[in-house]
Every structure is written in structure tokens, then in C-alpha cells.
């Protein structure tokens, strides 16, 4: 059975071009870039080339890019750096819909005595800008607001947010793990001080990420040790993956416009089909400001894990905000923050696409999904009257 992978916000396939570029550095050129001999030392240049490519995708100077081990490390480092750099400030601002890498770190700081503000969103997942404008004061060390949401794909008005914070001289970090490679981002123009990105969301391998730190921003490292990354992130460089991330960013930049159009065409077709063929469904999130590859759909009267495991039988991969899939009993904090009724959260399914998906796959899922929903609704004690109609 051929896998239909519609879970690209979870992780992506390594692009063949990326793997090819990495291969020599995983096999023959295994040196340590810090070494004095050429065998290791020559890798330093390759890392700098990759740094320039990563910067190139987001309009950053190479020296503003610090390689990290993943998106989470990048997010944690940004927040930790902010509070270490401004020890007299005891307040941070973030949102109720952040990825756990920011959300739980903010809660951790709150337990340590920091004041943490978690900004609300409306029922379409849009940031409450009124609450935002009142949230910060002179005690605020950092504001961390995600670029685009991983569950719904909703994009926040980062430029406007950054502009307001720049005026107030408050440090601004954004978790752009889902946005980089999917949206055009130009940090020369955007008022952002720190930005996190992750390799495996854009067809580079897992275990590599980067933090953009704008020139002139106070910075304090999280991982302390050797001199690597200009003293901003200790630890021997993950050479192969850094080179892979560089290549992946180059590819993303080259095809961004074309890919965006392709992905939104596929996504919109899938949405149209499912809305047409399944009664009692709703799209979660602001469809006007949304990543081109993501859709989050609630199927009433059925539970997400059951849907996913039925899809699994056809080799179709997706994810759900249902409680049963998370390992905890609590359903998605993002959909709850949006005030989506519990009944709709339990039946929520996220499809997230990539350049490797095809229209044939969309057709296949469009055909199978209504069947699964119908079968599971037959099993469900709810919604019977409506279905009969």
C-alpha cells in the first residue's frame, strides 16, 4: 500500500537533493570543523555557506543565524536569552495557542515567579489585538508570538505586532517553525528581533534548527561549553544536517511562489470536496490568513482517533486535536483557546500538505474520507436525526 502523507506540519520527507548534498559529510568527510587539520577545518567553510543560504531564505545576514538542534531548542534559547539579558524585567507575553516549545517554557517561567501573560484568540484563531496592545509594560522582557499556528495554519499579523513592539523597544521573538519555507519572510523589512525555524518542517532532516538573532540584540546562550557558533551555541556542529538545512532553504526559496500556489490549490480542492461530501463539518481557523498547506476540519459526532486509525488502514496519514491522540486526556489547547465546542474538537482532523503531494492523492482522500465518516457516524449514538435527513 502506498502511503499518502498529509501530515507535513508534523514532519516532512527529506528532499532527495538535500540528502544528496549531505551524504559526503555523513560518510567520508566526518571531521570536526574546529580541528586544525584541513580534513576537519575545511568543513567550516561549508557551514558558513549553509548559514548564508538559511539567511538568504529569510532576508537575514549570515552572522544573524545560529544553528540549533531543533525548533524547540531555538524557542527555549530565545526566551532564556531574553530573561538572562534583562534580569531586572520579570514579565513575558505570549499566546494561548503557542506550540508547547514556547507555551510550556512560559509556564515554567511562571512557576519560577515570572509574570506570564497568555494572549487570547477569537473563534477563528485570530489574535486579540486589543488585549495585545494592553499586555506589555516596562517590566516586559520579551514578547513571543508565533508566526503561523501549527494546528490551524492561522497566520498572525507579525509585521503589525513587531512594529508596535519596536516602537516600545520591547524584544520580540517569533516561532516561525511552520512559516519558514511556506511564506515569504524578509527580515530586512520585518521588525522581528529573534525568529525560530526548524529543518524537518521544510524537507531537511530532523535534529537541526536555527535561531535568527538580529544584529544588536542582546543575546545569552542556553547551551554553554565550547566556542562554536561564535559562542552562541556550544557543541560540535551537526555538519551534515547543517549542510542539509542550507540546501533545503535554498530549494524552498527557489520554489516558494510556485509551491504556495500549488499547495493552496490542492488544499482548497480537498476542503471543497470534503465540505461537499460530508454533512456537519466545519473548518477551524481564519481561512483568509492561513498557511497554504494546512486545513483543520471538524467532523461532528465522531472522534478523531477513530478517524485517523480508519485512514491509517488506507495508508493515509493525518493528525487530530482529539484528546485520545495526545497521550493526555485533554484535547487540543489551540482549539480550546478558540472556543471551538468540545464536540467539534474531538472530531477535528488536520491535513497538512507538501510539494510531494499530488492531485491524485487529494482525489483518493476525498473519496475515502466521506466513507469513513459515514461508517463512524453509523456507530455513533449522536447526530442520528440529522444524518437521516
Amino acid at each position: 500500500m502506498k502511503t499518502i502523507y498529509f501530515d507535513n506540519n508534523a514532519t516532512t520527507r527529506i528532499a532527495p537533493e538535500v540528502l544528496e548534498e549531505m551524504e559526503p559529510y555523513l560518510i567520508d568527510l566526518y571531521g570536526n570543523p574546529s580541528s586544525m587539520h584541513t580534513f576537519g577545518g575545511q568543513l567550516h567553510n561549508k557551514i558558513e555557506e549553509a548559514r548564508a543560504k538559511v539567511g538568504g531564505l529569510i532576508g537575514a545576514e549570515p552572522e544573524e543565524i545560529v544553528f540549533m538542534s531543533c525548533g524547540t531548542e531555538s524557542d527555549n534559547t530565545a526566551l532564556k536569552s531574553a530573561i538572562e539579558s534583562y534580569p531586572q524585567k520579570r514579565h513575558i507575553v505570549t499566546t494561548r495557542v503557542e506550540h508547547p516549545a514556547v507555551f510550556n517554557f512560559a509556564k515554567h517561567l511562571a512557576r519560577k515567579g515570572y509574570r506570564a501573560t497568555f494572549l487570547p484568540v477569537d473563534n477563528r484563531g485570530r489574535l486579540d489585538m486589543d488585549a495585545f496592545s494592553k499586555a506589555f509594560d516596562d517590566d516586559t522582557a520579551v514578547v513571543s508570538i508565533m508566526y503561523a499556528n501549527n494546528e490551524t495554519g492561522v497566520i498572525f499579523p507579525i509585521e503589525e505586532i513587531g512594529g508596535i513592539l519596536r516602537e516600545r523597544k520591547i524584544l520580540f521573538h517569533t516561532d516561525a517553525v511552520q512559516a519558514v519555507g511556506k511564506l515569504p519572510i524578509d527580515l530586512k523589512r520585518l521588525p522581528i528581533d529573534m525568529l525560530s525555524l526548524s529543518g524537518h518542517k521544510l524537507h531537511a532532516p530532523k535534529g537541526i534548527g536555527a535561531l535568527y538573532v538580529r544584529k544588536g540584540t542582546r543575546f545569552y546562550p542556553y547551551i554553554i561549553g565550547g566556542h562554536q557558533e561564535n559562542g552562541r551555541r556550544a557543541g560540535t556542529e551537526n555538519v551534515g544536517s547543517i549542510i542539509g538545512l542550507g540546501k533545503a532553504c535554498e530549494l524552498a526559496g527557489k520554489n516558494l511562489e510556485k509551491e504556495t500556489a500549488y499547495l493552496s490549490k490542492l488544499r482548497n480542492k480537498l476542503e471543497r470536496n470534503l465540505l461537499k461530501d460530508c454533512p456537519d463539518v466545519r473548518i477551524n481557523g481564519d481561512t483568509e490568513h492561513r498557511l497554504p498547506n494546512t486545513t483543520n476540519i471538524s467532523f461532528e459526532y465522531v472522534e478523531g482517533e477513530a478517524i485517523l486509525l480508519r485512514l491509517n488502514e488506507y495508508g493515509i496519514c493525518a493528525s487530530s486535536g482529539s484528546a485520545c491522540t495526545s497521550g493526555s486526556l485533554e484535547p487540543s489547547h489551540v482549539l480550546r483557546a478558540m472556543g471551538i465546542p468540545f464536540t467539534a474538537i474531538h472530531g477535528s482532523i488536520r491535513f497538512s500538505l507538501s510539494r510531494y503531494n499530488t492531485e491524485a492523492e487529494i482525489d483518493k482522500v476525498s473519496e475515502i474520507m466521506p466513507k469513513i465518516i459515514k461508517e463512524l457516524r453509523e456507530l455513533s449514538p449522536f447526530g442520528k436525526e440529522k444524518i437521516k435527513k
Partner: protein
Amino acid sequence: MWDYTKKVKELFLHPKNIGEIGNPDAIGEVGSMICGDALRLTLKIDEKSNKITDAKFRTFGCASAIASSSALTEVIKGKTIDEALKISNQDIADYLGGLPKEKMHCSVMGREALEAAIANYRGEKKAPEKEEKIICECFEVSEEKIRKVAIENHLTTVEDITNYTKAGGGCGSCIPEIEAILKDIWFVKPVPEKPAMPKKLTNLQKIALIQDIIEKEIRPRLQADGGDLELIDIEGNKVIIGLRAMCVGCLMGDVTIKGIEDKLKELVSDDITVEVG
């Protein structure tokens, strides 16, 4: 991904006894869509032999909830109602070749639906909700259910209780209460009595006591959840507090305040009221 047995997968993909018996002799309904799973069980029972001649179900829930429901109907068919009542949630799990421990609550739901159906057949009315003491507000789990499931399955930790009943799996504020229930069940020594209070506290003693309880008992618990509070003032028996951190705007705010009030009533004086300043 959950490690489901072959039997769970089989009964999830091809469940048996789906639907609803027309004109049933017994109906058992448990759970709710809000909690994430629900089961409606209908039975046909032979009046003379008291045998369950047919059983059908409809379930809203995950794969293991659907498989557990299907297993339940298979197990009880042909049994008398007395025999059926001897079936434990563990029997349902065993029929499935086991369930991941986080999913044991699905087997408990099956057993509860059966009990509800038989009570319905016998014309027993369920004890009115109000008499049950709800321990877990998030998933509406009563003390009675926690005690029953704990004893039947020999559960000794809060984590086990959460896996089997969901209690404690939401906001977590009932975890100390679950701990106390478990202590009460499994420890030979009774839970120590609270120290006897002096009959009449002076105002200063009372203020000091309230401050002490808030610092040592209440704040650490809120902080563990990302919340916090500040004691603003004490006027007579009125304690005025401010909610901080994650408590601000928290949906469980009222429950939190009620919990603080109960604690202070228990440890200081029955007349204490708590208000947000």
C-alpha cells in the same frame, strides 16, 4: 501511536452488534460527547430465564472505546443478568487481549453501561446526581466511582486512577483529593486528623494562619499549574485575593476560588469567605 492488540484493531475496524434494538428491554447510557466518549447500550432480555438474548451498541469514541463496546456485547450475550453483572472491566480488557493502560477507562465505560442497563431493566433509579460527591470537575467523576474502580482493579496511584476513570486528567486540581481517597482505601493507618484548632483565634492569629496556609498549601499547588495568587487583604472573615499568572482569565477560576475558600474553611474557620479583589 497506541500499541493496540490485533483483537482491538479487528473489533474497531469490524465491530459487531452495532446499532440499536427496537423496543429494547434495557437501555444503558454513559459518558458524553463533551468528555470524549459515550456509549449507548440496548439489550433484549428474556423475562423467564433472565438471559440477555441480544445486545447492540452505539459508541462515540476512539478505537479502544469502540472495540471495548463491541467486546462487551459479545461477552454478555447468552448470559443471565446476574452472570453478566459479574463481568469486570478487566474481563472486557482481557477479551481484547489487553488495552494500553491509558485506555483502560474505555473498558470501565463498557462495564458502567452494562450496570446502567441492568439497573434500568430492574427499574432501579440511579441515585440522584446531587448526592454523589464529584471529585474531578473536568470529567465529572464521583468519589464513589473512584473508590469502586480503585478497589476492583487494585489501583494505588493517581496515574492509575486517571487511566481508568479520567479523574485528575484535566486541570489536575483534584489530584490531592484522589491521593487522600487512595490513602483512605489502601493505608491501614487512618489519615491523620487535622490538628485541633484553638477555639477562638485572635485576629492577628487568624491573619497569620491564613497567610501561612496560602503560602504553604495553596500557592505551591497553583504554581505547579502555572497559576498564582496574591493575598490582598483580610477584613474580618473576608479574605480578598488577586489571581495571578495562568489563573488570570482561567476558565476554572471560580472552581479555584471555591477550592481556596473550602481549604480556609476547613483549616481556619467556617465563616471564611474568599473574594477576588
